[in-house]
């Protein structure tokens, strides 16, 4: 077992621990910290697998933007409400049972599926360095790229609309 494999297992264990802590912690800020550690461990897994570009963007976008926004909002909304005292809803037992069933079903289907089929003649393995990846990305998937920019514009307009409607209902 090389040190690379050990590191992948270590990051996997950290991600799993972060996920479990997310369900158990009481304060939303602790949940956010657990999620940040889970995301950083996943970025470590991607880096160990050689997919550097996804690892860097995971930290940049998820930890550096999405989780910063989440931590900011948790800071702002530190209301002492009943959800601090009673963490779990009425669905605790059915939820856990269903989760275990789902994980079991997915695991069994994965074991039964076996190795995926690699199409013959698919060409060389793709390079996940920044320049070859971005050239391939924009050569074949430029339409998806443009559509995501439309999605982002829609998200900006929607966010402004929500904030303005909230302001109108306040006054």
């Amino acid at each position, binding site marked *: 077992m090389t040190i690379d494999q050990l590191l992948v297992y270590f990051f996997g264990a950290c991600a799993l621990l972060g996920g479990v802590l997310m369900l158990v912690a009481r304060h939303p800020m602790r949940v956010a910290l657990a999620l940040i550690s889970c995301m950083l461990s996943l970025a470590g897994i991607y880096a160990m697998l050689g997919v550097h570009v996804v690892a860097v963007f995971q930290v940049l976008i998820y930890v550096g933007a999405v989780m910063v926004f989440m931590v900011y909002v948790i800071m702002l909304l530190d209301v002492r*409400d009943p959800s601090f005292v009673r963490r779990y809803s009425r669905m605790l037992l059915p939820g856990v049972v269903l989760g275990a069933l789902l994980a079991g079903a997915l695991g069994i289907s994965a074991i039964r599926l076996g190795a995926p089929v690699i199409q013959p003649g698919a060409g060389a393995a793709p390079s996940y360095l920044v320049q070859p990846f971005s050239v391939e990305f924009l050569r074949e998937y430029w339409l998806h790229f443009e559509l995501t920019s439309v999605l*982002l514009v829609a998200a900006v307009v929607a966010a402004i609309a929500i904030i303005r409607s909230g302001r109108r209902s306040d006054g």
Partner: protein
Amino acid sequence: MADTQLLLGLSFVLFALGLVGVMVRRNALVMLMCMELMLNAVILALVTFSLETATLSGAVLVFLIFVVAAAEIAIAIPIVLQLSRQRSSLDVEGYDRLQG
């Protein structure tokens, strides 16, 4: 490859944990964060499949998921803010009136 099965297993367990979290927790922000955990699990599965089949489309879809997750968070958090201002609480059990 045992590595692939382990990573896929991790992705499934994280997805199940995220789903259980959305069902089980009462705080609206914690439910949002469990949804982010589900998206992260899907990204791990996509990266694993992209490496297994030696194609690029998995990693491209990962980038699209980044964009979608950012857009979703940008809208979901203002919605939760407005909701919490209405009921002055983040407890989703209290959002039980479909009026106003």
